[in-house]
Every structure is written in C-alpha cells, then in structure tokens.
C-alpha cells in the first residue's frame, strides 16, 4: 500500500494501482500536457469510465480526470457505514425548492469509478416504450435512440459486468439468460416474493452487478451487506474494477485527485482542453475533444462555470437547457415488522424486485412507472429513516429494537422532466474557489400521484407478505439525471444522440445528465450502454472523417 489516496495521486509515474491485487500496480501510459490527446474526459464514473475504456480500446488517446481518489478496495474499504463516507461527494451543495433533495451518501460519489463504487448494483434495462415515451405513452420527451439498438448495448454491458440474474425475466421482450446465475434470496426478498404472489403479480430475483461465481481474481459475493459503503471483496463489478483496469490496459491515462474547473474554448468556438487542479496547482491539458461526465449536478455546473465572452450563458447552452429538466427518482418506501427474524443486513440490499408497474399501463391515474425492491438498511441508514418520522428518545430506541424483524419495500419511481427543476450556480464558493451548485427540486402532481399509487400498492403487498405495523417513508429520492438532455432538435436539447453538443462540435457529454426521461429503473446500466454506444459512434464518425 502507498500513501494517502485522498492526498497523493496514485495514477502517476507510468503506473496505476491494480485494484485486484493487494499492493499491486499495473503500467499506465501517460500523455504530455502540451500535446493534444484525442479525448479529455471529465469524470470516471458509469459514463466517463466506460467511455474511456471503449475509446482507448479503439485506439484513441484518452485521459480521464476524476476529482476523487483511486481506492484499493481490498486494503482500504472498511466494513463501516460512517467511515466509508470517504467515497461520497462531500463538497458542499445547496438544496432548495418545494421538495429539497438529500445528497451526500444518498446520491453521488467522488472517486475513480464514480458513484458505482458505492452503488447498490441493481442493473436493469429500460422498458422499450420509454425511448419513445412522448409519442407512444404521451408524456415526457422522446429519446433520439431506438430501443433495439439500446438492447444490443445492454447485452454488451451485462456481459462486461457478468450480471447475475434469472434465466427468464418476467417483463418486456424476450432477453437471453443473464451471464451469471441469480443470487440466493434473503428473507427480506422472500417477503417481497410472497407479497407479490398474493397480489397476483410477477416478481424476480434482481439482476445484480455482483458475482455469483468466481471471475478471474474476484471472488463471489460473500453476502456481507455493505454494498452501498463500497465492496471490499471486489465481488461487486463496477467501473473501478472492470472498466477502468480495461481502460488502463488499452492505453488510457487516468488522473485521480484532479478536479476540472473549466473547459477552455478558443475564438473559433472549439474546445482546446481543460483546466484542472492537481497536486496543489492549476494545470492545463490540451485535447482535441472534451467529454464532460461528472453526473447530473457536476456536469451542468462545469458547463456553466466554463462560461466565457463567446458563450456567456455557459457552454453548449444555446437552448438554455443546461441544468434544466433535472430529474431524481422517487424512492419512497413502506416498512413493517415480521414475526420471523429477517436480519435484512445479510446479502446485497435488493435481492428481489417487481417491475410490474413499469410494464402495466391499466389502472394508473398517472404517467410513468415504478419498480420496487426488497431492502437491507444498515443501522445508521435505518436510524436516519426512523428520525425522518420524528422519532427520538425512548420511542426511537424502542423502535430500533425491532431492527432484525423489520422488512421493507422501496420504489424507484419515474419523475417527469420539468424545467423548474434545475442546477444553477450559487454565490458560495468551494475549496477550489469555484461557485457551488444549487439543486432546486419539486415534485409535480403526476409525480405525487405515482408515489401515492406506489405507497398504496406496496403497503398492500407488504401486508400480504405477512408484515404488520406497516408505515410509510414518504420523502426519499435517489439517482440524478437529465440536466443536459439529448434529443433530435437543437432548440429543445443540449446534445444529440451521440452525446455531441449541438453548439460546440468537439464537446461531448456522457453520463446520467443526457437522459430525456428517467423511467422507473435504476440508471447505471443505461448510462454504461449509452457510453458504449457513444464510443462506437465516435469510431464510425472518425472513420468517415466527421469527428
């Protein structure tokens, strides 16, 4: 092991940490600052990390920057909720609006590998119709990409991560079996299954990005349950231990602890590179193309921060939509108690799922859909859930005594794009002297009707599953998307289907911000699929001389 990864960069001197081996290193190519690389990518998460890999594998010269540390999970991830906050984006952000969201441990990561380092591994495909939700389903906005093409890329990503899942998935067009077998259910997942069967709807073991059999140097999941605090066994297949090592092997350079503060643009209106802060000073890297992949808050923030005389409203913003149509997913839950011991802390938190209400359109008084999953909150998250109900003192301690009997169902619900939900710059500055992001959020009536439907249905399903003393957690959100949407019209979108900005042809976006709609499934599989597609498209455009 070497040094403190939060203070001393590791991707340096021609080598990078080999996260699959204790104390291991692997050779890493490095590029000079004054020679323009083909692509400078800002962010190494689900979008940026995957894209860096695929572009490098096509032979492009790539540098990917991340503000966060390059962790070695085997040596540096404790089994501890509080300590592992080190994986989160803890630089300040302001949250306001009628329904201000919670961030920090909830929504965003700051590390090589991005938020997938501590994500819950749920790996789902969009429902095909969602790619045309405006024209087929009557709400939101159409994607400029065809679902069949996306389904090809989903398959590629599922194979790359060796997703474990069922042989047949109950919803949507037929898909092949998942690469690895489904995980065993824990008791919390069995309650979901029981409830779904009683209610007459389908359920499934959740497709998860954690190994159910050995793969190379990585062992299968040990069911330790600390997934959202980072996986210290490397069973979780993520950007950090899959895409990034592949990227480095293919010749990409990753610069950790490198905060990009500005995308530079010349007189001709083209990007020339990025200003980034590393090892105590601002530096400049030249690049022929810049890709912003900082997730749905930092991406618009960086585009706005990069405003200049030529683009006073920020980069790629002729539509005025940078930062707008920011979407979370509703993440409300119902909780109850079982007579049996459940001990939901064992195993990945969401081992069973139903997507029934993503695919059923009858019986809804709202647009959109939702999935719900079984849950396994560890004690700190669980007490925070209880305090949101206003519990403290004896009442809190008494409730916490039921920890091993509690069981819950939690939704991932679609919210509609609204321009008033947005990322803007605040007056307050961060440690780099850059204005911090302000995140403004409110549900619309449709969102509220969807949530009410879900809470009502999940309550009945939990009751049918055998739980008693059921109560509702009414105010949680998850995932961030949409603040720089893709589309087919420059007036109503920021980038095209390839993630290429309409305004600046050598500026691209590749992360959760490009979603026109969010659907009712967790987003990272879709983000990675888009990244793989973008890389292929760039390859095609380059071959045609259209880059």
């Amino acid at each position, binding site marked *: 092991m070497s040094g403190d990864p939060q203070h001393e960069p590791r991707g340096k001197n021609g080598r990078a940490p080999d996260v699959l081996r204790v104390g291991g290193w692997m050779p890493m190519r490095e590029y000079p600052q004054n020679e323009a690389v083909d692509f400078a990518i800002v962010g190494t998460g689900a979008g940026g990390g995957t894209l860096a890999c695929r572009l490098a594998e096509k032979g492009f010269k790539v540098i990917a920057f991340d503000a966060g540390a390059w962790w070695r999970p085997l*040596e540096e991830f*404790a*089994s*501890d*909720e*509080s*300590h592992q*906050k080190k994986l*989160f*984006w*803890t*630089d*300040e*952000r*302001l*949250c*306001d609006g009628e329904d*201000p*969201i*919670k961030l*920090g*441990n909830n929504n965003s990561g700051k590390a090589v590998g991005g938020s997938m380092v501590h994500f819950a591994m749920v790996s789902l495909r969009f429902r095909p119709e969602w790619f045309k939700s405006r024209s087929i389903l009557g709400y939101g906005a159409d994607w400029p990409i065809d679902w069949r093409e996306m389904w090809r890329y989903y398959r590629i990503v599922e194979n790359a991560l060796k997703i474990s899942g069922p042989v047949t998935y109950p919803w949507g067009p037929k898909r092949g079996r998942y690469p690895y077998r489904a995980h*065993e*259910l*824990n*008791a919390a997942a*069995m309650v979901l299954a029981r409830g779904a069967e009683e209610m007459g709807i389908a359920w499934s073991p959740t497709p998860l990005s954690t190994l159910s059999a050995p793969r190379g140097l990585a062992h299968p*999941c*040990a*069911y*330790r*349950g*600390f997934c959202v605090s980072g996986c210290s*066994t490397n069973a979780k297949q993520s950007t950090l231990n899959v895409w990034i090592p592949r990227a480095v092997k293919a010749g990409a350079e990753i610069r950790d602890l490198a905060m990009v503060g500005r995308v530079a643009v010349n007189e001709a209106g083209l990007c020339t590179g990025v200003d980034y802060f590393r090892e105590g000073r601002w530096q400049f890297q030249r690049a022929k193309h810049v890709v912003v992949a900082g997730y749905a808050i930092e991406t618009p923030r960086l585009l706005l921060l990069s405003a200049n005389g030529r683009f006073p409203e920020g980069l790629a913003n002729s539509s005025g939509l940078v930062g707008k149509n920011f979407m979370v997913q509703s993440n409300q839950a119902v909780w109850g108690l*079982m007579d*049996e*011991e459940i001990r939901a*802390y*064992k*195993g990945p938190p969401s081992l069973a799922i139903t997507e029934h209400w993503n695919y059923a359109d009858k019986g809804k008084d709202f647009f959109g859909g939702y999935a719900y999953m079984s849950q396994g909150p560890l*004690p*700190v998250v*669980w*007490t*925070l859930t*209880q*305090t*949101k109900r*206003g519990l*403290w*003192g004896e009442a*809190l*301690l*008494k409730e*916490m*005594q039921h*920890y*091993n009997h509690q069981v819950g169902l939690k939704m991932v619900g679609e919210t509609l794009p609204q321009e008033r939900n947005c990322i803007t710059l605040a007056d307050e500055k961060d440690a780099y002297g850059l204005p911090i992001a*302000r*995140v403004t959020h409110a549900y619309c009536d449709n969102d509220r009707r969807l949530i009410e439907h879900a809470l009502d249905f999940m309550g009945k399903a939990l009751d049918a599953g055998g739980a008693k003393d059921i109560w509702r957690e009414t105010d949680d959100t998850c995932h961030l998307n949409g603040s720089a949407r893709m589309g087919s019209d420059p007036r109503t979108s920021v980038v095209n289907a390839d993630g290429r900005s309409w305004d600046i042809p050598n500026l691209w976006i590749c992360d959760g911000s490009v979603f026109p709609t969010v659907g009712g499934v967790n987003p990272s599989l879709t983000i990675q699929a888009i990244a793989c597609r973008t890389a292929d498209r760039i390859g095609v455009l380059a071959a045609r001389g259209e880059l």
Partner: protein
Amino acid sequence: MSMHTSRYPGYDVLRKRDTPSWDEPTRKVIKERLATPSDPRFLDAVQWRALEALCACIVPQPIDRPRVPLAGMIDMRLHANAGDGFRYARLPPLREAWRIGLAALDEESKGRHELPFASIEPAAQNALLKHMQHGELASGAWQGMDPQLFFTHRVLPDICGAYYSHPLAWNDIGFGGPANPRGYVRMYYDRRDPWEAVEAKPGKERQALKENRRVR
C-alpha cells in the same frame, strides 16, 4: 435513562474483532471510534454542557453498560468540519448551525426557567425539545435559523447517526457488525449464522445470554 433489557443479552460485537468477520481496515477504524475523547476539541465548555444534555435527551442510553461518547463524536465531527455534501439552502453550514443552535437552546431554557439547558429537569428539557421539533420556538437567539429545521436536519440525524455507528449500539439491536471477509451464509427466515446475535425469546433469556457469550 433507559431501562430496557436488551433483546440480545450478552451479545458483544467486539468479540468478533479477531475473527474472520473483521479485516484490518475495519479494526483500525473501529479502534479510533472507540477512542473518541470525552472532552471537547471544538466546542467551548458552555456549548459542550448543552450538547451533552441534548444528546442524553435524544438518545437516553441504557444504564447497565458503558455510554457511547455521543457529545465527543459530534464534537470530533465539528472539529473536522465534516459536512454531508449538501445542505438545505435555509440552514447555515455545519459548524455555524451547531454554534447557533446550542447557544439558542440555552437562551430558550433561560427564558423559561432562568437556567441553561443542561441545568433544567429532564422533563423540562424534553418539553423544550418538543417545542423545537414542532416549530414552536422563535426567540431572537436563533439568528434567523429555523429551529425546527435545525432539529429535524441537524440534531436528529447527527446525534442518532453517530449513536448507531458505535458498536455498543449495534449490540443493543443485534446487528452483525463488520462482516468481511466471512460474510454470511444463512439467509432464510429465522436462521442465524453462529457468528450472529441470539435473540432472547420470552422465557429463554438465560439461554440467549449463554449462547451470546459464545458468539464470535
């Protein structure tokens, strides 16, 4: 103070410290947490007294075991200025919120009882906190900070979150604690691995106590 008898008598997650359920990074982190000082680094003596009293109300700890050094944990966090990565636009930053909040708590208490918060009766303390929780406080001492927001978004999450990050609190609720590399094997209803806490079923407390002493 709480008089609950534990549902998991005799269970001590720290007995697993040298088993395959704990790895080296975890041992280090928990050791540091157990060594949390019980005097302040960041707060002054007056603020500290108010914080200790506040913590005792929010989490009335069982009297039959050592106490989790809650005020010390909050003070360490303030000392490190470790924010959450976001805050409600209507609340000031972490340190400022706590500084204003603790002073205002004393002011509110003096206004009612002529004594600082730490010196009034527990019943009066709890009553005052209920007023804060329900948005019924409004003295100038809050300097424009919303007391109700302070209560729901700083006091409760900060104190309760710190409490349940401590092994003593894990014992109370029968949480398995750190679990790498051993993890778990028995996932079904009512099944426990031999390294998990035994729940005392009514009338079987002695048996649970005996078994829990062997859990490691």
